[in-house]
Structure formats: structure tokens, C-alpha cells
């Protein structure tokens, strides 16, 4: 794939369809203007409102796994071989409502109605995905949906009610069982039970060849490219890496954690390997975009987009991660960035793998934006620290603050990696600061002096996300915040 025209085949609601439209056409335009499924709405075309949320099902570990995605950023190519579900695909006959639809009505969770279908789809997706069926996760499933009318309280009540009912009937976590229960509970129609078989069959028909164009455009989840240049992408000759099974793995070796380039943020979030390594994984990744975007956005996509504020880039910079290209060239992630949106990467290279040392001891991620969630950072920063006492990790897990604090004062930093975004033309690995921290005790003085060095390493500019002086002050505060979070450090002021 995927030269301008080639056949894309997938299941749209309850029928298998083929399309020879340009593979770069968005699924949103396809369902609305080619399939006349007008329930999916257009709000922003940049993945920031969720009005166009659909469900995407694919076979994974022998079951169909559904995730919510914003159809405005999803190329038709990424629908190939999958089950695409719009609201028309969950509607029941005779104007009956599904469980999710009914609670939205009962709680007056809809006013003008324009965003409503997006909420319905996200909440429906919640019942099909692998997350815990708690109220908290139900709310989390709609964190990418913006409503301007209700003030969300009624929608919150709806989410609480419907998730409460669920936990009453099922404590299941397994996604296959989820699907069965969802069918039984009338969350999705019966035909969903036949999808798996159809997808297996479809998979055999849709093995896609990769292109050999000499100037390929590599597209992952599309969440940045379709915001930046949607028109160009419709007809672009693109190589879609999102579905490349070889690029979606999370593996633990003796020394490293190795991640396929097309691993999404959600893949990280649900990965037992990552959860074990990062006790605050959910808390931190929740700050990154929204559920549907996390379901689509790939790590490599975030890296090569080279946004000075890329959350995942800043995260992995502090892990001192390295990247491996398709030609097996390996470089530290910090060396990928030459200047604003300029990469140390030839045009035929794409990232294949990311790896970092797995002996992570103390890691923290901080991010502040105008809106805490579903926003781009004014400043973000991550830190990874190894401190003296080799037994520390077992004795003092980094979420056990009170105990950690007891020894923090006379603890010496053995190794340190600090990164920051929004303070330079590139996502910044704070080299001098990291070097300075090594061998220092955790103390007011160390943090103060490190902050002085940070200020010399950064060069923020004033823009819509904040003035330069704000970004300087904010990074100072967030840097202190790392120590507050990790060691219950008490700043003097």
C-alpha cells in the first residue's frame, strides 16, 4: 500500500465493504459523504473534540479488541481489514435505545446533541475495551469528548450510572467476555458476535504489500499529520506503518525494554511490563492527550513529529532511550533532533524500535497546560534518577513517599536524566543539568543549583501557550515538583 488508489476492504457496521477511494481519505469523510452515515459529526477535524468518535475493532490475541478513535484523523488505509463501527452500527431497531443511549437520555446528558454521538460511541467503547469497568475508567473513556452545552455533570452521572450497572453484573476484565456481556446487555447488537470470524477471513484477503516508492511518506496513527496537512495526505503516496504487526510489540530483555515503533500510548498504558516499571503510569499518561488519540498515536510518530513539546518524546528522553531505524542504525533519541523540526534521519529511514534500560528506579513526568487534560503542554518535563543504596528499589518503592522521604536527605544521586519540552526549538534533553545532578545529594542546594543550570540550557519563546518568562518559571517549579513527587521533598518556598 498505499498508492493513491488501491482497494481498501473492511467491515463497516454490519457489512463488508470495499473502496477504491484514495487511501488517505479520512474515515470521517468516508462514512459521512460516501456512505451517508451522518450520525458521526464534524467538530474540529483535529482530534480535539471527539464529535467524530468511532469504534475500531481488530483481532488481537484471538479476540476482537475495540478502541475508540477520532475518525477525522484516521486514514482509510488504517481501516483496512478492521471493523469500523459508527452509531448506525449500534442503533437498535424500532427506535429502541442501547443501554448507553438510554442513560444519556435519562440523565439529560444531551442538549444540542451535536457532540452526543461521540460520547455515546466512547462510552460504548469503554464496555468493549480491556480497561477496568470502574466509574473512573468510564469517565476516562470520554476524556476526549468536548461538550459545550451541558457542563458535563449530566454526562458524568450517565457514565457513573451505566458503569455502576455493569459492575453489578460482571467483574470481567477479559475483553472477549466483555464483548459477550456487552451483547447480552444490549450495549452492542448481536451481529458483533459474528465479527471475529469475518475479520479472520478478511485478514487473509487484505495482506497489504508495502510500497517501494522512493520518497515515501510514513504515516503512523495520523494524529499529527492529519492535523497539519490533511489535504495533502488524501492523495499522498504513503506507507502506513500503523498496522504493521512487526512494529507493535513491547518486550522485555535482560537489560532493556524494547518497543515497536507503532506502539500506541494506550498500548503502553495497558502493558503489564510498563505498569510494573512505572507505578504512576496511568496518572502520567492520562496527562497525554485523550483516550481516542492515545488509541491512535504511535511513539515513533510522536518522536519524528519533533514537536518541541511532544509528551512521549520528553518521557523517553528522560529514559535515555535510543531508537533503531529500519536499516538497523541506532542512535540515542536525544541525537535525533538537530533543530526545529529537523531530524538526523534520512528520508528513507523510519523508526523501527525504541529501547531503554529497564533498571528504572525513580521516574516522574510533569506537565502543565491551560487545561490540565487533553491539552498541549506549556511546559513538560521528565526525570529518571538512580540513587545510592542499591536496595532502595525493593525497600522503598517510589510511590511510597513517606518512607522514601526518610532517607532522601542523605541520598546521593548516582545517575540522572532530565528532559523538558516547550523550552527550546526541540524537545530537550537537559544534558548539563543531568550531568550536574550525578553525585549530588538531594537537597535544597542541589535543586537550586540545578535550576540555575536549567535556566542556562533553555531558550523558551513567547507564544499562545505562554510567555517565555512563564515557561522559565514553570520549568523551575516542575523541576522542584519532580523531587516533591519522588521524595516528598519540601521546598523552602
Amino acid at each position, binding site marked *: 500500500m498505499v498508492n493513491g488508489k488501491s482497494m481498501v476492504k473492511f467491515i463497516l457496521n454490519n457489512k463488508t465493504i470495499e473502496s477504491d477511494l484514495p487511501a488517505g481519505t479520512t474515515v470521517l469523510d468516508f462514512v459521512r459523504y460516501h456512505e451517508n452515515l451522518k450520525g458521526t*459529526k464534524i467538530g474540529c477535524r483535529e482530534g480535539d473534540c471527539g464529535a467524530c468518535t468511532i469504534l475500531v475493532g481488530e483481532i488481537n490475541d484471538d479476540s476482537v479488541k475495540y478502541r475508540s478513535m477520532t475518525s477525522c484523523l484516521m486514514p482509510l488505509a488504517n481501516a483496512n481489514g478492521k471493523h469500523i463501527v459508527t452509531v448506525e452500527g449500534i442503533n437498535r431497531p424500532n427506535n429502541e435505545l442501547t443501554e448507553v443511549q438510554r442513560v444519556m437520555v435519562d440523565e*439529560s446528558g444531551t442538549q444540542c446533541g451535536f457532540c452526543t454521538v461521540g460520547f455515546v460511541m466512547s462510552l460504548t467503547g469503554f464496555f468493549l475495551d480491556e480497561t477496568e469497568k470502574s466509574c473512573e475508567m468510564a469517565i476516562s473513556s470520554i476524556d476526549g469528548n468536548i461538550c459545550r452545552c*451541558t*457542563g458535563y455533570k449530566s454526562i458524568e452521572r450517565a457514565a457513573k450510572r451505566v458503569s455502576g450497572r455493569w459492575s453489578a453484573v460482571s467483574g470481567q476484565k477479559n475483553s472477549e467476555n466483555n464483548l459477550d456481556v456487552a451483547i447480552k446487555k444490549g450495549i452492542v447488537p448481536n451481529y458483533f458476535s459474528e465479527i471475529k470470524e469475518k475479520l479472520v477471513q478478511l485478514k487473509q484477503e487484505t495482506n497489504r504489500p508495502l510500497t517501494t516508492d522512493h520518497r515515501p511518506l510514513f504515516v503512523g496513527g495520523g494524529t499529527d499529520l492529519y492535523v497539519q496537512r490533511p489535504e495533502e495526505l488524501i492523495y499522498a503516496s504513503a506507507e502506513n506503518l500503523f498496522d504493521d504487526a512487526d512494529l507493535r510489540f513491547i518486550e522485555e530483555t535482560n537489560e532493556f525494554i524494547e518497543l515497536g515503533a507503532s506502539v500506541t500510548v494506550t498500548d503502553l498504558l495497558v502493558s503489564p511490563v510498563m505498569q510494573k516499571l512505572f507505578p504512576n503510569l496511568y496518572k502520567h499518561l492520562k496527562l497525554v492527550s485523550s483516550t481516542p488519540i492515545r488509541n491512535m498515536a504511535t511513539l515513533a510518530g510522536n518522536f519524528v513529529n519533533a514537536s518541541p513539546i511532544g509528551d512521549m518524546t520528553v518521557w523517553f528522553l528522560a529514559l535515555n532511550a535510543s531508537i533503531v531505524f529500519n536499516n538497523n542504525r541506532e542512535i540515542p533519541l536525544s541525537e535525533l533532533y538537530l533543530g526545529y523540526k529537523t531530524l538526523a534521519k534520512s528520508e528513507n529511514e523510519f523508526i523501527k524500535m525504541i529501547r531503554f534500560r529497564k533498571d528504572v528506579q525513580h521516574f516522574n513526568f510533569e506537565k502543565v497546560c491551560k487545561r490540565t487534560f487533553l491539552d498541549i503542554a506549556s511546559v513538560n518535563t521528565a526525570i529518571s534518577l538512580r540513587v545510592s543504596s542499591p536496595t532502595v528499589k525493593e525497600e522503598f518503592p517510589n510511590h511510597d513517599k513517606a518512607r522514601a522521604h526518610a532517607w532522601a536527605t542523605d541520598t546521593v544521586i548516582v545517575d540522572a536524566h532530565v528532559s523538558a519540552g516547550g523550552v527550546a526549538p526541540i524537545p530537550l534533553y537537559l544534558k548539563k543539568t543531568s550531568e550536574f545532578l550525578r553525585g549530588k545529594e538531594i537537597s535544597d542546594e542541589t535543586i537550586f543549583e540545578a535550576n540555575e543550570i536549567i535556566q542556562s540550557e533553555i531558550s523558551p519563546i513567547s507564544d499562545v501557550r505562554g510567555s517565555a518568562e512563564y515557561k522559565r*518559571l514553570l520549568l523551575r517549579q516542575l523541576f522542584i515538583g519532580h523531587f*516533591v513527587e519522588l521524595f516528598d521533598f519540601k521546598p523552602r518556598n
Partner: protein
Amino acid sequence: MKNVDSKSHVRGESIYLDDIPLLQGTLFACVYDSPVAHGVLKTVEVEEAEKSKGVVKIIRAKDLIGANQIGGILPDEPLLADGEVHFQGMPIALVLAETEEQARAAVKKIKTEIEPLEIITDPRVAFAKNDLIVPPKHFKLGDAANAFKTCEHVFEGRADVNGQEHLYIETQGAYSIPTEQGGMRVYSSTQGPTAVQRAVSKVTGLPMHLIEVDVQRLGGGFGGKEDQANAWAAMCAVGTQITKRPVKYALHRMEDMRMTGKRHPYSADYKIGFDKDLKIVTYEATFYQNAGASADLSPPVLERTLFHCTNSYFIPNVSATAYSCRTNLPPNTAFRGFGGPQGMFVIESAIAHAAESLNVLASEIQRKNLINDGDEFPYGQIAESEAKTSWTQADEKFDFARLQKEADEFNRENKFIKKGVALMPVCFGISFTKTPMNQARALVHVYTDGSVAVSTGAVEMGQGVNTKIAQVAARVFSLPIERIKVHTTNTLRIANTSPTAASAAADLNGRATQVACETILERLRKVAAELLKTENVSDISFLDGFIFNKNQPTDLDWVTLVNEGHMQRVNMSEHAHYATQGIHFDWGKAKGHPFAYHVYGTAIIGVTVDCQRGIYETDFVKTVHDFGATMNESVDYGQIEGGIVQGIGWMTMEEVVYDQNGKLRSNALSTYKIPDIYSVPKMIDIIPLKTKRKNLAIFNSKAVGEPPLMYGIAAYFAIRNAVRAFNSEQSPAFDAPFTPERVLMNLYSEAAKEMKAGK
């Protein structure tokens, strides 16, 4: 009673502008808009674009058959720039092409040469140049200037409040279709079908009776589609007139954000004087409204700033002056509250200023100055006040002192997390302040199967007006709501409508519907009396689809009665008119009785500020609100919750940013943030005010659209209080919104100064 549209909404079956099935031959429009905020349009090169694939026509100002004018109040706004451009985003040319994609591609090929002129974005600068949209407006009560001499305490200062993007999730748009004799039907996402009809009439030169405007519903309006829907409808209409083909334009989000106006930013100076008991003796305020490049609705917005400049307080001496200042921004426009919130923010700033200086709680000053029954507003209307009752009931219910104490105690124990609380009484006048606009009509048909069709001038945009109107018909006829259908708002069925605005649509159109239904019912009552052989017509009543005689059930049901009525050639349709009685205003004296009634309420908001990072959360909003007697709880509570969150958004994270070149920097959802599900108050507690007082609202159910937005102002002052709990040395400028940036810079004001100095 849930919103009647709920079921089709959750199934995705409700129809919005972009969902209307397209007719064959439909063309797609796209605007080329000015890349420069102010300048002389030297050349516009469209040749390349004309050659672009699929392009049928490119329309410029000179191509218009009618007038190049869409100004609603003042004729100062061209549809397409001609000669000069006045703001970035001002439409210059309209491309019509066979597909939307082709139209957009062609727009990119248009080039202009614009000789730059001075760009003004600050209303005070425009004021200094005397560049005003309309002459200043002035309200006066007592003798404000002299009264300062008697004051114990006087405070002067400046308050600034930024605009707000409407961010209706459905963008602006229109679709026009040619009809006979050169006429057209225009589907528009508008709050003002008649305004669209007038604008279309003007630019096409067609008489209004050849123009049908039809509105099914809007995916949100909030004032943004009151006047600013006109341009897109006018463009489609012009396209249809010139090409004789249907023309559609549904704006992309970024086009919408950069080309349309927003809530007006204001800058203001205040001076407030108190006696020794903290009674406000006198208040002077000067408002500089940032109107943008043309009038739009700025003059009446300006007026409402004055109407609400004393909020819920009685002040015996007031002098308030407001200037509508012309700048090179998109024309700012109506937004929920319509200038009132800005006026209220300024007096609340003045009160906070005094409270901080005198080291008393602002709520102490607020409470002591609440307006009483019989007190006079600065515009002459005598208050029928619920200010004190709502305050007192809220205090009894929520215990302000306890909430304050909890915050204080928390703050003593926590260094880097601080809590703040603030109170906000609200008093908001209901009626269009332009008295002639307070009229509406409804058309009601009873069909022979007993079903009822209603059309009114009200536009459904999520506020539930159609639900309330259906309830009115259902209640008068005593029928289940399913027998009533409220249809599209259409200028052929209902003429000369006022826009759906000013929180008044349910009152005006509901009352007109009530009159229509009662008129039909009166005729059917006579038929029933004959059938039931009762001399006294008033013995006949209707209940649940059956006819009662002297309160006793009969065998006569609604459908039978309706059929009998039809056989007897009784008119079962009615087109009724309603005009609010008793309201008037004399702008010569700036006195009168402009409002049918006021809506009152008191809210308390609590916030928590993370003083390490400068971010915050809203813990609670508790309010006692004056619904009158709500006719639909779920609709009205929804309006309050939504209004509060929108108000908090305006005061906190929503920051409209234009650079000095007049370019909108917050031009997408990625750069302009409205509240998401995590940023809303953890708790919103709404208690209805207990009152038996009668009012002019439909079924005594007071208007609810706008007033709750202003409760959100308390969020600003709550954050301010929390910031001062951390950094007591700092007195932040009264400058809303209180973004995380402003919070952090005020928390660490010394460090911020160092950073600014480049240390």
C-alpha cells in the same frame, strides 16, 4: 420531562445543517479571507484559482447584484471586502466549485496585495483616537461625583476582562437552493432566521417574500449565531443567485474561529466609595468595549453592560459611561450574557479591591449592599428583588462562614496547596432591551387525527425551547407530549421573528403558543358544549385526551371532538401573537422599565490551587437560583450547569489571544481550551429559590439561559483568594481570565519579575 430531541440525538438521527441531503448540482463554497488586519486592497488575483479544477465561479464584491452590506444594526459591514480590509479573516472572495475539496484548493491559489494601514487591537487606543462605533452611552443615578466627598473609603482601579470564543461544536454554515421566480430557500445554522432573511434580501436585492429561511436546529449557538450566521447564508444566496445552483458552505473550525467575532473584551476604570458601615455610596465606571471592526451587535451589548454594571447591588449614586471602540479584530458579537457579565466583573473587582484593602471579606460588602424591593436600578426600573432571599437561603443551606473557615483552616495546614472561596450574587434582566423586539408569533395546527403541529420563531439550539413549547401545547390541550411536534423555524410560517436570544425565546414564543392553543381550544370547547348539550361553555374542560363536563368525565375524546370540529368547519389552526406588556425604555433619558422581570441567584464557588505548579481545580459550586416555578427541571438544571461551566471557562482557561498584528493565535481547539470533563467543578449543587412571587414568564417559569453563566465569575475571585493565601504580598491585577500562567506568575511574583528581567 426530557428534552424532546434526546432520543434522536443519542441515535445520531437529529439533522443539522451539514446533514441535509444534498440536491444534485450542489456547489460548495469557500471563502478567501484577509491575511492582513487593516489595509488597502490593491489587487486580488483570482486567475489561477479560476483555472483550478472544478471551479465554477469566484465572486467578488463587484459581482453582487444587491448591496454589499450585511450590517444588522448599522450598515457598516460589507459582505465581501471592497477597497479596504478591516480585520484578519475578513472575507474577500467567495469560491464556488463542484466539490468542497476543489473549492478549498482554489482558495489557496488566490493572491492579494494589501497596503498595510495601522492596526489597532486595544480599545483604549481606539478610544484615544475617538474611533467609536456609536456615540457613548451613559447611565446616571443620583450624583456620583459629589457623593465621593461624603465617603469614608474610596478605591479606584482598572479591570480588564477578555473575550470568549463561542465554540459551538457545530460550526457556522448555510445551504441555499433556488426556487421559482428567482427566489430561494436557505437552510441556515442561525439563531435569527429573520436576520438571515434580511441579509439575504439585501445582498441579492430580492424582496423578503421570495426568501424562505429554514432552521431545523443548531449544534450550539450561545449568541455566536445570532448575527454572525448572516454572512454565510448571504454568501450561499449570492452564489445561488449568480449560478442558479444550490450552494452549500459549512465552515471548517479554523475558518469559523478566525472569521467570526467573539464575546467582547472590555477594559474598564472604576471608582467606588463606601460609608463607614461598608455601604456603597457611589460608583463610577468607564467601560471601553472592544467592538472589533464593525458594529454587529456591539451597541446593544454595550447597553447591557450598563444595565448590569451594579449587578445585584443598590447604589444610590451611579455614573457609568460606555464606549464602543472600533478595532481591527473580527466584529465581536452576542455571547450568553450579552455584555452583562463584563459589567458585573468590573463591580466585583471594585468590591474585591475594597475588601482586600480594608481586610474584610468581599462577601461582607456584597451582603450589605444587596438590592431591596422598591430600590431603583440606575436605569429607573424599581426592583422586585430576590437578591436578599437568594443570599439568605444560600447561606442557610450552605453556611458561607463554615465554607470560609474550612478553607482558612486548610490553608493554615498546607503550604503548597491553597483553597479559595468566593461568592457571586447575580441579578439579570429578562427582555430584549430594545423594546420592539419583545414580540413573537406561533402557528398551531390541530390535524384531524388529533395530532398537533407547532411552529414558532424560536430556534432550538440545545436549550430545550422546543421542549418547553411542546409542553405548553401539551398542557393547554391536555395531551401527551408525543401528540405535539414542534417544527422547523421557518420564515414562511412565522414572519418577522426576533432572534432566539436574551434568554427570552421560551417566554415570548411559549406565550404566543399558549395564546394560539387557547384560541383553538376555545373554539373546540363550543363544539364540545354542543355535543354534550351543555349551555355553559365554561363547564367544558380537557384532561388527558378526554373532554370533561362540569369536572365529570364524558365519553367524548379528543380525536372525536377534533373530527366533529372539522365537520362543523371550525378553524383548528391559529397564528397567534404575543408582545410583552408593561416594558418601555427612553434612551433620551436613559430611564424606563426595560425588563419584564429579573432573575436572581447567589452562588459560592470553592477552588483548590496547586501552588507548586500554578494549576487549579474547582471543588464546588453551590447556588440558590431563582427559577420562579420551573416548568422543566431537567432542561433548566441543564442550562444552569452548562452556564456555570461556560462562565468558569471564561474566567479561567479560555484565553482568546490576538497578536499585535490582529492575528488570532488561539485559532483552533488545540490552542483555545474550553472545559473538558476533568476540569469542571467536582460538585454543582443547585437549590431552587423558594418564592411565591408572580412574574411574566411562561407558566411562571423564569428565563434560565443566560443568568447562571455569571455565577462563574466567582471562580476568578476564588482563585484570587487562594493565590493571596499563598502570596499575601501580591495583589494580582484584575485581569480575567485567571490562566495557569497568571496564577503562577502571581504566586511567585518575585521570581516572575526576575525571569522577566532575563535573570
